[in-house]
């Protein structure tokens, strides 16, 4: 039985510019459930960050045309006033960002910055807020949190800072945590620790998590659901197992095959050739077709819809399921998993 | 904004600034008319404070009378503060140029063949508080000791070098000056090494005291005594009575004089008018305020509004234009001859000016009227046609209507200039235009302040017509003066110069042409008239092949003359200089210009100081603001 926290329906975010309309997000739908982690994967410019910034109400509404629905516990956040949004942000939805080095104000103490979040939403004394901030730091595994709270961000290591960011995001016991590339800027060894912290807290606090990353590997171990985005659209959605064991879309396949995996017999990196498309002049038909090794007749004219291929595993591609399976075997150089 | 101000050197002829302008040439002005009403018809009465604005005091000797060489300061001393043995009437024109006894009972005849002068001092003249004692002959003798004391820097001490024993005193070989004796407190005797006919004039200069040694003796460094000056005239510096004279150490500068703000004078309670005459000093106002206001325009606005009575600074041309055009205001505008000549000098040791024909051509071509316009037009002076102003030749008519380079409207004459130039070796093709290299990039010195800068284009334009191109250097007044005075700088010509009298005798101009006065630095005869080959060698400059004319003999001859013959002799030398030597283009006898406030009921011009005759002014306090 699932407890849907966030449901996004057909979200579109378009930015009109002098050169044309940038379709940063162009029809995205997904849900995040309590106790689950949704992994959102895509290259930079695929619209994954904009999607969640829109959810948070953090994009400039004046410069963007937004349509669709963002239902958070049944309320459409796109229709909420700035003030309502402000009360949801931080309190009900916490968010952490890619670069912990720049995501904290350099001139304020870490503890004060966390306490500030508390004070923005709760009528507590400054002292209490500080105490809670220290507790939050302790919760994310920062040693000697009392002293650390009095330090400035630049005195923290990258991993510690990201932990502090997590503490800041979770200090008010939100229902949903959005983690926008939380490990990208960190050392490999630290990455795992951070993901572990997020995963552990998710379970302990029973919250929903949206974990955004440009790498499938990152989301692999901690996500229950996965969405792969390309050029502002989801091109594959499903459970972790569905997407990882049987990726359908050639792009997802490409992403997966470029991930080094220890369980693979032959170590081989197959990068996706070409670069992400311009969001102003999105290629006609399937946006991926210029880079797709399997493109064929309709790809450059007809845009494939996202279609459920069974069991909630959906993708947007003209290829038949069988063809995809064949490609998968060839590309991943492995047998169909026995599962 | 370049300041237009009364310069530091108003009396230093070489450094005449815009402030000291003389002689009325402009319509309806009143050269002969002495006691001028300041615009009101109220009878002059005692009382009130006479307020004078100035952008800068400009003292060059710290207001110590022993060294101070500023005309306006001389006016303050002799009109208001100190009484010398001799003095003047403090009025305009010839009457103001006549030397009279002041502290002395009479001007004696010189005895011993003109070398001994015995003066009797009046009784009852007392120093102002806190000194409060009678002035004695020793106070005058002390003034001469100050002149002979090097550290005091008596800038015009050279006038007293003829006193017996002065040289020995200066060198420290004698404790007193042998030629000055004081047989008793009211007698002083001067002995000179040779007859000095103008000695009474020299005794009217402020450095001759009297100074009380108990105060002045504490201040023997240049300029120091100015802030401790003890008066002997009708006024004293405000607060001087509070000076604690128990010892040198207890004396603090007198409060009424702040060199950067103001000078306040109040009546000297010890002044006895019975010892003086109203012909010399009427002393009508109860006090004087000399206020530094750096805003020249504001000074004249304040005079107009009745907040000041007068200014030391020259009237700006725009103000003069407005007043002279308004019959109701006209009378408040004064222009008085200042006995000074402004001139363009040419260096006789430097090509192309080593050729007299070139110098004549320059005289012919120069647009003197335009130059005067740069100064503000006719109100600012009379166009000069010879070296010294005619007033310095009393009794001589030799220079009446004299103008050897007369041109229409004084605007210059190209044909005559070219004719002169044709005679020059520097005009090789004889077309009347100099074509030699020597005429190219002639180094021409000028000042960087108004109105001098306004003359630069006129001079450049005029000289260009006869083929002389100039490289003009515009420097601030001081550096321009100093550079011109360094012979090694080889400045070829310049218009940064002007010269004024110290006392009314043409000799005070002719010193500029005495070859024996030429100095390697600090030289003031920029034209180098009388330069000898030996001097040229000493100064490491080339000596022109044609030599440099000398008038040393003429100067020696005239110096011995007296009376009208003396005037005629100097006038003849003036002509010789203009026609044969041609060291200058004299262009302006500058006026002193004044604007009076509405409260001024009596005003006169002091021919001696070239400024207002403060001894004869009066104000109506009811009209003051």
């Amino acid at each position, binding site marked *: 039985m699932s407890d849907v926290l966030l449901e996004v329906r057909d979200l579109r975010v378009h930015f009109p510019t002098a050169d044309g309309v940038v379709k940063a997000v162009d029809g995205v739908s997904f849900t995040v459930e309590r106790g689950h982690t949704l992994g959102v994967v895509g290259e930079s410019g695929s619209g994954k960050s904009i999607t969640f910034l829109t959810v948070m109400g953090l994009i400039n509404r004046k410069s963007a045309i937004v349509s669709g629905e963002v239902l958070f516990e049944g309320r459409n956040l796109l229709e909420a006033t700035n003030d309502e949004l402000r009360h949801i942000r931080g309190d009900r939805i916490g968010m952490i960002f890619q670069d912990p080095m720049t995501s904290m104000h*350099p001139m304020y103490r870490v503890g004060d910055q966390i306490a500030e979040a508390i004070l923005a939403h709760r009528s507590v004394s400054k002292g209490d807020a500080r105490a809670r901030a220290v507790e939050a730091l302790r919760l994310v595994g920062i040693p000697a949190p009392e002293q650390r709270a009095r330090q400035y961000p630049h005195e923290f290591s990258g991993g510690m800072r990201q932990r502090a960011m997590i503490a800041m995001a979770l200090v008010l016991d939100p229902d949903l945590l959005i983690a926008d590339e939380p490990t990208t800027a960190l050392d490999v060894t630290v990455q795992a620790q951070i993901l572990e912290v997020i995963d552990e807290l998710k379970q302990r606090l029973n919250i929903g998590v949206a974990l955004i990353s440009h790498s499938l590997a990152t989301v692999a171990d901690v996500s229950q659901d996965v969405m792969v985005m390309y050029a502002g659209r989801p091109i594959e959605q499903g459970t972790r197992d569905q997407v990882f064991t049987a990726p359908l879309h050639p792009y997802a396949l490409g992403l997966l095959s470029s991930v080094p995996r220890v369980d693979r017999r032959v170590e081989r990196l197959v990068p996706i050739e070409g670069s992400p498309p311009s969001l102003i002049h999105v290629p006609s038909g399937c946006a991926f077709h210029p880079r797709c090794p399997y493109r064929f007749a309709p790809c450059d004219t007809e845009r494939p819809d996202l279609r459920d291929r069974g069991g909630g595993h959906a993708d947007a591609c003209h290829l038949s399921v069988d063809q995809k399976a064949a490609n998968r075997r060839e590309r991943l150089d492995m047998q169909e998993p026995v599962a | 904004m370049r300041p237009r101000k009364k310069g530091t050197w108003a009396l230093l002829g070489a450094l005449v600034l815009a402030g000291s302008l003389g002689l009325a040439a402009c319509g309806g002005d009143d050269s002969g008319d002495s006691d001028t009403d300041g615009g009101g018809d109220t009878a002059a009465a005692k009382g009130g404070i006479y307020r004078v604005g100035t952008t800068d005091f400009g003292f060059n000797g710290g207001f110590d009378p022993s060294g101070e060489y500023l005309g306006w300061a001389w006016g303050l001393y002799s009109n208001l503060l100190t009484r010398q043995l001799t003095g003047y009437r403090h009025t305009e024109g010839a009457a103001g140029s006549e030397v009279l006894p002041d502290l002395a009972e009479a001007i004696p005849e010189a005895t011993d063949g003109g070398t001994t002068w015995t003066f009797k001092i009046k009784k009852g003249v007392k120093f102002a508080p806190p000194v409060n004692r009678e002035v004695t002959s020793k106070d005058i003798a002390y003034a001469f000791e100050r002149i002979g004391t090097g550290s005091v820097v008596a800038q015009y001490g050279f006038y007293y070098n003829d006193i017996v024993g002065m040289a020995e005193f200066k060198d420290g070989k004698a404790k007193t000056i042998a030629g000055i004796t004081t047989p008793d407190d009211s007698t002083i005797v001067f002995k000179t090494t040779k007859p000095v006919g103008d000695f009474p004039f020299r005794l009217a200069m402020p450095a001759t005291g009297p100074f009380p040694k108990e105060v002045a003796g504490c201040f023997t460094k240049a300029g120091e005594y100015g802030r401790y000056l003890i008066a002997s005239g009708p006024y004293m510096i405000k607060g001087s009575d509070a000076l604690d004279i128990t010892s040198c150490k207890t004396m603090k500068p007198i409060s009424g004089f702040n060199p950067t703000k103001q000078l306040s004078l109040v009546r000297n309670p010890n002044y006895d008018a019975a010892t003086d005459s109203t012909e010399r000093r009427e002393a009508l106002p109860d006090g004087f305020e000399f206020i530094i206001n*750096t805003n020249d325009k504001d000074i004249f606005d304040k005079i107009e509004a009745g907040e000041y009575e007068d200014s030391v600074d020259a009237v700006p041309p725009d103000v003069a234009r407005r007043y002279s055009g308004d019959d109701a205001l006209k009378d408040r505008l004064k222009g008085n001859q200042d006995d000074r000549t402004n001139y363009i000098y040419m260096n006789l040791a430097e090509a192309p000016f080593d050729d007299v024909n070139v110098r004549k051509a320059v005289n012919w071509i120069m647009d003197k009227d335009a130059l005067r316009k740069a100064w503000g037009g006719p109100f600012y002076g009379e166009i000069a046609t010879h070296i010294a102003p005619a007033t310095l030749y009393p009794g001589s008519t030799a220079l009446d209507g004299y103008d050897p380079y007369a041109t229409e409207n004084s605007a210059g004459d190209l044909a005559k200039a070219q004719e002169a130039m044709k005679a020059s070796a520097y005009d090789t093709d004889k077309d009347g235009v100099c074509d030699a290299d020597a005429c190219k990039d002639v180094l021409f010195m000028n000042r960087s302040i108004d109105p001098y800068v306004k003359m630069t284009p006129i001079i450049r334009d005029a000289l260009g017509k006869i083929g002389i191109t100039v490289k003009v250097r515009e420097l601030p007044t001081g550096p321009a003066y100093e550079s011109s005075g360094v012979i090694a700088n080889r400045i070829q010509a310049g218009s940064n110069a002007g010269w004024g009298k110290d006392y009314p005798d043409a000799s005070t101009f002719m010193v500029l042409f005495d070859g024996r006065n030429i100095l390697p630095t600090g030289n003031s005869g920029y034209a180098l008239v009388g330069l000898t080959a030996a001097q040229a060698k000493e100064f490491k400059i080339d000596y022109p092949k044609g030599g440099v004319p000398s008038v040393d003999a003429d100067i020696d001859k005239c110096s011995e003359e007296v009376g009208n013959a003396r005037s005629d002799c100097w006038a003849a030398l003036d002509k010789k200089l203009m026609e044969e030597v041609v060291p200058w283009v004299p262009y302006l006898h500058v006026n002193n210009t004044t604007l009076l406030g509405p409260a001024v009921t009596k005003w006169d011009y002091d021919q001696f100081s070239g400024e207002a005759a403060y001894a004869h002014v009066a104000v109506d306090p009811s009209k003051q603001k």
Partner: protein
Amino acid sequence: MGRYIIRRLLWTVLVVVLVTLLTFVIFFVMPKGDPALRFAGKSPTPELIQEVKESLGLDKSVPEQYGLFLERLVTGDEYGWPGLGKSFQTKQAVKPELVQRAQVTITLIIGGALLWLAIGIPVGVISALRRGSALDRISMGTALFFVSAPVFWLGLLSLYVFWKKLGWLPGTGYVSFGSDPGAWFSHMILPWMVLALLFAAIYARVVRGNMIDVMTEDYIRTARAKGLSERRIVLKHELRTGITPVITLLAIDLGVLVGGTIVTETVFNLQGLGNWLLVAAQNNDLPVTLAVTVLVAIAVSLFSLIADILYAILDPRVRYQ
């Protein structure tokens, strides 16, 4: 920190020595007239010139004079400490006038600075917040105008309009606060405005640029994600980083302006340091020139030190490096 400050103070001393040395070099080595001549009368004798030289201290060799100058600066002279001697021109001690002049200049600078901060910072902040709006464009256009307008021209123009034509304000010159506070204020309005408009324009541009940079910073997004109010984000998060560099800028500008308001002082006839320096330098008044130079060099160095210290206090990243 302590050692850093000491090192900087030593550097200041070095700057003072070098700058005064340069002043000496320019004064003596370059061919110029001899200031002694000016005080020796119109017909000077070599002996009198020598006396004047002695009285001005110009009789000694140049290195000797420089040594004496440094010695007196450190140990004081007859007018007390620091020994700055007396002016060639006025024969008066330099120090009291230096103090008096410094008051004028400081009045000008502080009044101007308050004004330009009061104008420049809000304009910059609001322009940044309303970026691209008509208000922003007008503000930045005006700022560019005042950055481009020559101060002396603006000064003359304002005098022409407000003094000569409208008669709203008195003319130029300085009236001391003690003698007439009202006149002091009315005489300072135009100089303050003219000086302030230039700097307000510069500061508005700088603040706007800083704010725009800051507004795109990640930590501002974080602050928003925390659910802070816009007001708090602007006031506490954006302004803090947006304005900190202005404080450094201000300290440096204040230091430079101690000797750098020559043009404003000249146009408005304020008898301040800049004006004094100009006149003294033009007239070879060495003691005055040196005194002002020393003061300016110290002011520039000290204010830049203050700027650094302030920056360290305001920005913890600098403090701990």
